[in-house]
C-alpha cells in the first residue's frame, strides 16, 4: 500500500479524451499508470505509487483527469 502519495484518476475524463490513456502510460517515469480494461482507460499500479517523483507530467497532460495527492501534507 502506498503511504505517501495517492494518485486519483477520473476514469470518465480519461475515456473522453482521445489518446490520454496511452499518453499517461507512456509519460510517467515510474510506471504508475498501467493499461486498464480497455484502450481508453488506465489502472493505477498501486505498487509503484510511492515511487512518484512529483514531476507533474501526468497532471499537465490532464489537469482535470489526474490528481496527485501528497498524503504527508494532509
Amino acid at each position, binding site marked *: 500500500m502506498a*503511504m505517501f502519495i495517492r494518485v486519483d484518476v477520473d476514469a470518465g475524463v480519461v475515456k473522453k479524451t482521445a489518446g490520454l490513456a496511452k499518453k499517461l502510460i507512456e509519460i510517467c517515469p515510474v510506471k504508475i499508470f498501467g493499461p486498464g480494461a480497455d484502450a481508453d482507460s488506465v489502472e493505477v499500479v498501486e505498487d509503484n505509487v510511492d*515511487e512518484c517523483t512529483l514531476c507533474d507530467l501526468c497532471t499537465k497532460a490532464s489537469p482535470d483527469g489526474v490528481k496527485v495527492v501528497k498524503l504527508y*501534507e494532509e
Partner: protein
Amino acid sequence: MRFYESEAKQLLEKHGIGVPPRVVAKTPSEAEKAASELGGSVVLKAQVLFPGSDKAATTKTADNPAGAKAAAEELLGRKFGGHAARAVLVEKKLASAKVFCVRATYDGIAKKPALIASDLGGTDLDDLADEQPDHVKRRHLSALLPPSTYRSKELAKDLGLTGSALNRMTGVVHRLAGILLDYDLTVVEVNSLAMTEDGKLIALDCHMDMEIEGRARQGKILAELGVDESEARLPREPTEFDLAGAKIDHDDPRGVAGPIVEFGGNIGLVIGAGGGSLTTFDAVKKRGGDPANYAAIGGNPSVKKCQALTKLVLGKEGVEKIAVISNVVSNTRADLLARGVIKGVIELGLEPSEVITIFRAPGAWEADAFKILKKYGVEFCDRSVSISEAAKRAVEKIGR
C-alpha cells in the same frame, strides 16, 4: 581482483617469461610427491590472496620430499591473515647470481602506464624508492600506442645491464608491460626476478591484480586461469549480508547501493554514497560509535531500493537503531530517501520515530522530506547541522 601466485605465473609462462619448474599441491602428500619429482631443494608457498602481516610465514623451504611434506602440512594447517591456504605451490629452488625487481602499473600523477625497476630485488619497492631512490628507475609508456620496446631497453640500461643480459631484461620488461595493458591489470610485479648463473631471468614470485572495472571484458583469460565469476577475490570474502546488499542493488538499477559491507557493531548506517559515506563512517567512529555495516546509497535510488536496504540493515541481528546521514544531496532526492527508509522501518513492524535516530540528508527536495519526517516524528536536521554533529547525535541515542 587478486590472482594467486600460481595463476600469475601461469600467465607469465604463457607470455614467455621464465618461471621455476613447479607443481600446485593440495595435500601434504601431493607436496611430497612434487618435491621428489622436482628434485633437490624446493620452496613451498601457501596460496593465500591476502596474508597481511603473515606474508613472510607463507613461504618455507625443504631439502627433501619428507621435509616438503612436513612444511606443506604446516602451511595447510594454519591461517594467514585469517585465511586458510587454498593450495601449496611447490617450486624447484634455484640458485641466482643477482636479483632484480620489476613492476608495471599505472601512475596516477603522470596518468600513464609506468614501468618501475630496481637492481635491488627482493625488497619492498616503495621503501626502496624512499630510502635508496638511486636504485629505483622508471619509464612511462603510452596508453594509446602499443608499448615501445625501446622504453624497456632504456630501463634495462638504467639497471646497469649490457650485452645479452640487457636484451634478456628488455624482453621480460616489455612482456610485463604487455601483460599489464592487455589484461586490464592494476599492477603486475615480479619482486624477485632472478638472474641465474647462466644468465637466464626467472620470476621467483609474482604479484598480479586485475581492475574490477576491466573484469567484464577479460572473461577469456579468467576462464583460462580457472577463475570463477562468483569469486570476488577481495581481502574479505563477502558475507551473506553483503551479498543480500549486492542483490538489492542488482535487482533495481535505479540509483546505486554499494558497497554494502557488514561490520560487527550495533549502529545501522544508511549513508550517502562516495565521499559522503567515508566522511560519515569516520564521524561515527570518531564519536565512539560502532557501525554494524556500511551501506552507501547514491545516484537517486528508487523508494523501493531505499526501503529494501533499510530492511536489510535494520533486520540484522543486534541492530536496534539506524542513522541516515548524507552529504548535501544533489541528484539523490531527500524526499524519496525519506519515503523508502520510513517504509522499510514500518514493514518490519517498527516505529520510525524510535528506530531512526537521525535523518540528515539536506539538499534536493528537502522541503518535502522534512514534511514526511515530521509527520512520522523522526528527528531530522537541515544543512546547518554538520555530518559530524549528526553522527554525534546518533551515537548518543544509540549508546556506545
